[in-house]
């Protein structure tokens, strides 16, 4: 078949038209700066996003806006003073931050808190989880444009905080844990009140399930968005609900031997095979439910006795090092405490917090997604800025 001159000219004209079209439609890239203060970043994370039209070409999280120098400050504080500070690392999971540090110091000092103290610690740990993840359950709605859920979340969170305040005196930062036990015992009538609040928390979870999980808009915005495959998640060092939503059955509460009382209760680790934003929301919803179950069972069998082991007035921790990690609301949190045997605080305190590793996947995860989904994915990853920067 020979090509006629007419065909040749038509071909050239077509090529030229296409080139012109490509030139006209070619969009210039745009660099969008999300943050450092943005409602979706839960604080002061700045994310630099390079856009091609509506799609993200690359994203770069810039952290450090909330760096307060925790590890250095821990070195100049005494052991009793450190708990005041580390309450504020993950400010929503306040009490859960204290526990691993205190367990590490107890391991160094070779003292074990009495069983009642361990059980109350576990109860408060789970209540911190409720206060933390409960707010996430409502806040996720806000990022998708639904304002109502966050009002419910704040309403039911207040009940948990009231319980905390009744027992510890601190509404937000309890500072309740001591090396060798707890500050003081539970007040009178606290247990019955706590059972009521657990009932309300379960109702709140049902409400969220009806409001958001069954909602068609919510499902369209989150299903299949921001998928983290199992292996990639493990490679980036994700932990907590983020990795359980990718189908990894891994929970330090169950898998790590600990003096706390999780083994006394009957509960389940929930996983989800999908690994998308929806799965992450769903897993956290089930986690709050499991927490209420754990607290209910522990309240039933709460042992009596003292809440403080015999401790000297001046704490002198012997030379050594200890590493304790627990499953915090956001994921794995660990403290590596080195003591030089001196009368002052730790010689070194390395803090492994969950959010710092959890957001390390952001550049990989945001590549190729559309701009509105950036906010959804960030919200579903659920990080606390103090937990990232420390």
């Amino acid at each position, binding site marked *: 078949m020979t090509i006629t001159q007419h065909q040749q000219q038509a071909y050239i004209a077509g090529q030229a038209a296409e080139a012109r079209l490509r030139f006209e439609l070619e969009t210039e890239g745009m660099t969008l700066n999300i943050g450092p*203060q943005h409602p979706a970043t839960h604080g002061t994370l700045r994310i630099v996003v390079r856009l091609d039209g509506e799609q993200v070409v690359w994203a770069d999280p810039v952290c450090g*806006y*909330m760096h*307060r*120098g925790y590890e250095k400050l821990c070195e100049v504080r005494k052991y009793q003073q450190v708990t005041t500070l580390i309450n504020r690392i993950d400010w929503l999971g306040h009490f859960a931050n204290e526990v691993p540090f205190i367990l590490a110091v107890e391991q160094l000092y070779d003292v074990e808190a009495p069983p009642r103290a361990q059980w109350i610690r576990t109860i408060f740990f789970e209540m911190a989880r409720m206060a933390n993840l409960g707010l996430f359950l409502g806040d996720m709605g806000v990022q998708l444009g639904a304002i109502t859920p966050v009002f419910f979340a*704040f309403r039911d969170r207040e009940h948990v905080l009231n319980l905390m305040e009744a027992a510890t005196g601190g509404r937000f930062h309890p500072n309740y844990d001591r090396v060798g036990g707890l500050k003081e015992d539970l007040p009178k009538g606290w247990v019955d009140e706590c059972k009521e609040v657990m009932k309300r928390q379960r109702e709140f979870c049902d409400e969220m399930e009806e409001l958001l999980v069954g909602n068609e808009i919510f499902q369209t915005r989150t299903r299949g968005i921001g998928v983290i495959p199992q292996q990639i998640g493990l490679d980036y060092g994700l932990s907590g609900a983020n990795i359980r939503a990718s189908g990894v059955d891994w929970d330090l509460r169950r898998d790590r031997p600990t003096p706390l009382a999780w083994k006394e209760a009957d509960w389940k680790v929930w996983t989800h095979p999908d690994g998308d934003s929806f799965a992450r929301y769903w897993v956290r919803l089930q986690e709050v439910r499991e927490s209420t179950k754990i607290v209910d069972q522990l309240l039933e069998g709460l042992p009596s006795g003292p809440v403080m082991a015999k401790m000297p007035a001046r704490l002198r921790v012997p030379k050594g090092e200890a590493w304790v990690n627990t499953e915090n609301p956001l994921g794995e949190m660990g403290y590596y405490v080195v003591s030089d045997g001196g009368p002052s605080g730790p010689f070194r305190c390395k803090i492994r917090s969950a959010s710092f590793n959890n957001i390390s996947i952001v550049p990989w995860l945001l590549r190729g997604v559309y701009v509105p989904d950036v906010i959804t994915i960030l919200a579903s990853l659920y990080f606390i800025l103090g937990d990232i920067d420390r």
Partner: protein
Amino acid sequence: MAQRGAPVGLVESGKVPKPLSWLLNYSRKYSLWVYQWGLACCAIEMGAAFGSPRYDVMRLGVIPLPASARQADLVVVSGTVTDKMAPPIRRLWEQMPDPKYVISMGSCANCGGPYWDSYSVTKGIDQIIPVDVYVPGCPPRPEALLEGIVLLQQRIQHEDMADRWRGEPLVVGGGPIS
């Protein structure tokens, strides 16, 4: 820390009649648009004060929903201000239109709080921007923030438009001003 904003016409002449200034102040104090500059733990208590049904700040005439600092009359700086965060805060304050007010919420924003010896924390935002009301606490309860807002409203009511920058900062719990 006295600092003048952009000229607004009527105010500079200093000839606002008393009933007019009363009316002006009365309307201003119940339509405060507050920009939430939430940084750390205090941001959650601020959220509880602004977004929760128990505290409900809107009954005080405060609207916590401006999309940008350029639409806001009041900014609540709540939480730890680090040296990396200080320049954006200054820029935020410069973007706000006059008359503008600042509430510093929490010990960290007031003076550094528990991070008083940290190498990276700014010890008090009053080094960067003028502050109208300090709310102490670590973090302050939502009620404390509400009281701070009420004190600010009292201050706005008794304000002479011409010299509104000359006042001393307020401290919550320091007694009423009239």
